[in-house]
């Protein structure tokens, strides 16, 4: 059970006052109910345009099980020169003797464009020290992210949100030099990667990995970067040397060199795909095997044709996580480390000439 707790707000305030209000609210709450204990896992600092503040807050509310312990949301309003702030506590837990109630804090800070370049001076007093800090800036503002890099261990990005995939990959590589990068576009592809890995896991099918000669990825028209990441993953894991992708008739084409074969790569926009990310994947091998995975009800619809033309189809069960769930997964991943993503970005940079 989640309950709204105490709230404090002020206009034309300072980071020191906001920090004081946070401490005061936590103390008051503990005095009222000793079962309340503050969560201390992760700070999330979000930089948003003021007009989209509500939408981002709603999205953060719906992330499922993975909530940051303290959220500092900086809403940028054109023309603003002063700082307004609201601090709110929420508690989660049952009102039962002996049970713990978990407290989380949320600070919404309205700032102006002039604050962005030195945003660290506002945010630094507001984050809990000695726990990880994750920065997410879904509406751009790279100068604000840069100013926070010395405070943050992790930066959340979404490569499909950037109109130019090559620029997005360059920026992710740049951020990766000073922080760990969690990419929502990469996380959306996790079920696809898991299923492809599982399909080739039985020894009989694993042999086919060395014979793959074609990969076709269908994606939402604005999610080309997701398709590039998927192909880059195969290249990174299977030791292919990718060449540059070329655009023709809205489709990206290219090839990669494997040890014994060339691999034809095709990224095809799919107008019927409503949500960001991939719509389908088809992998073919020189022996005639074809494996396809497509979005379907209740999971991914899988179809395999073996070298003799025998066909088999099934559903790989799994619920869609939705965009809020993907964001929750991004928050969770901030505390983990993916050993593969950096190699995948390097391959993507080669494919995109980034």
């Amino acid at each position, binding site marked *: 059970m989640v309950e709204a707790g105490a709230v404090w707000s002020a206009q034309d305030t300072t980071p020191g006052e906001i920090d004081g209000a946070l401490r005061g609210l936590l103390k008051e709450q503990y005095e009222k109910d000793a079962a309340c204990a503050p969560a201390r896992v992760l700070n999330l600092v979000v930089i948003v345009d003021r007009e989209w503040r509500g939408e981002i807050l709603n999205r953060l509310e719906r992330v499922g099980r993975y909530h940051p312990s303290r959220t500092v949301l900086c809403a940028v309003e054109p023309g603003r020169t002063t700082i307004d702030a609201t601090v709110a506590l929420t508690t989660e837990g049952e009102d039962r003797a002996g049970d713990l109630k978990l407290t989380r804090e949320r600070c919404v800070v309205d700032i102006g464009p002039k604050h962005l370049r030195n945003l660290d001076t506002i945010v630094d007093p507001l984050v809990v020290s000695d726990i990880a800090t994750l920065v997410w800036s879904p509406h751009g503002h790279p100068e604000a992210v840069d100013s926070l890099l010395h405070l943050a261990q992790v930066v959340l990005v979404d490569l499909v949100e950037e109109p130019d995939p090559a620029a997005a990959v360059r920026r992710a590589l740049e951020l990766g030099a000073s922080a760990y990068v969690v990419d929502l576009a990469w996380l959306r592809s996790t079920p696809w*990667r898991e299923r492809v890995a599982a399909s080739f896991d039985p020894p009989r099918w694993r042999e086919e*990995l060395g014979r793959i000669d074609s990969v076709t990825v269908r994606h939402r028209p604005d999610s080309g970067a997701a398709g590039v990441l998927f192909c880059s993953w195969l290249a990174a894991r299977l*030791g292919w040397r990718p060449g540059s992708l070329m655009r023709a008739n809205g489709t990206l084409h290219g090839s990669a060199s494997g040890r014994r074969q060339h691999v034809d790569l095709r990224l095809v926009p799919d107008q019927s795909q409503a949500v960001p990310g991939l719509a389908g994947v088809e992998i073919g091998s020189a022996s005639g095997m074809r494996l396809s995975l497509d979005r379907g009800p209740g*999971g991914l619809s899988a179809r395999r044709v073996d070298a003799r033309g025998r066909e088999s189809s099934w559903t790989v069960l799994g619920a869609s996580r939705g965009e809020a769930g993907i964001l929750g997964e991004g928050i969770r991943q901030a505390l983990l480390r*993916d050993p593969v993503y950096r190699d995948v970005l390097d391959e993507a940079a080669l494919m995109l000439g980034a």
Partner: protein
Amino acid sequence: MATVTQEQVNPLVEGLERLPVHPTTLVIFGGTGDLAHRKLLPAIYNLAHEGALPERFDLIAVSRADIPHDNYRSMARESITKYSRRKPDPQVLEKLLDRVRYVPGTFDDDSVFDRLGDQLKDFDDEAGIAFNRIFYLSTAPKFFPLIIRKLGDHGLERRKDAEVRVVIEKPFGTSLAEAQQLNREVLSVLDEKQVFRIDHYLGKETVQNMLAFRFANGMFEPIWSRNFIDYVQITSAEDLGIGRRAGYYDSAGALRDLVQNHMLQLLSLLCMEPPVTFTADEVRDEKVKVLHAVKAPTPEDVAEITVRGQYTAGMAEGADVPGYLQEEGVPPDSRTETYVALRLKVDNWRWAGVPFYLRTGKRLARKVTEIAVTLKPVPHLAFKAAGSVGVQPNQLIMTMQPNEGVSLSLGAKIPGTRMRIRPVNMEFLYGTAFLSQSPEAYERLILDAMRGDATLFTRNDEVEAQWRICDPILQGWAHQDGALPTYPAGSQGPEDANRILVPDDHWRAI
């Protein structure tokens, strides 16, 4: 960069949190039973929801009720909707139920196993591959040997090109002789590596965290021995009574219900040496060594190192509650213990001389499962100033429920001009330090069985070693006359429990 070679590991799994699991058919014997409906089916649904089931998965339920597939699917849908920890996604649920079949019949009926074999073969033929098979025995224990024998008779116990595993629910016997007999019967058909004896307690995240706590932190291991530890208490207290479980509980009692399995598992995890690797057999080898080091009590020891009791009427959460003998279904002359406390010794180099107190009971003051490790007092008390609440030995408390965490009591100076000391707590709560709650134990254990990872399951020698400790106690009690000590519901347990404490040791308040 990885390159593909023959004999390679699958290069695509690097970095994935969920490793591939071979296509599997899970068969639940006792598919209409309470455990299947409340725990197993919801756990399977949650694994499906998260995309954690094998790429291809089928489920067969076997039970006595003569109902068609569709009726069973309806029952399963209802149970999952009612007991799942998350609201089911209708599309995932329907796709899962599409892969569910039901085989009706009694377990002594050969035709049941013929039909089961046919159904398993149909699934394999449809997919064109040999599925792994897991037979989950969620039945009354008396059926375990029968079902396993029938699996053998019908050639379902092993297969070429795929694995066959059998998950056996607790209790695994009610005495050492029964457990040994059951092991003999099971292992006359199956290899030990095919057998997964479940103790759902081991699937709990906080129990597994004991291994992380001990072996991932350099600060505790140097003091983890008789040189620094004075005594240890393991408590598993329930505030509830037996509810409607009189049929089972009155024939089991607290010792069989919790000590023989869960509490001895906690003891072995607490005392084991670091395994060379965290593989199933390495971990279990070390646990078995601990159990072998626990001296089995002699008949004379039983009176000295054990206390049992039965709750009488009292109050729980402000309400009047009946005593054990007044509970529905309990015989009025029952001598079944609802409370037990033991003092055990682990006779090895590390633990010689350290008393280990185990206690469990129903209708105690509150629900708590914890391990309290009391360190030896400091050798010289420099702070004997008047006004100190007391320089007390440090205590390390590992709590499994209700608030999972670890706390350490330390002596600290009371603010003021004088050097007065009182104990304060340094607390770590899992709930505040991780983003999410633990998954249900059954989800983890079912997935482990499908992966073939037996680390969290009990091996044959482990079960027998546990019974070797508990059997003499049961025999000793059988020869004791006189009234059973009692304790009021909602209390700390029988007064008599203090009798087994070594002088200067104290029970922690429940």
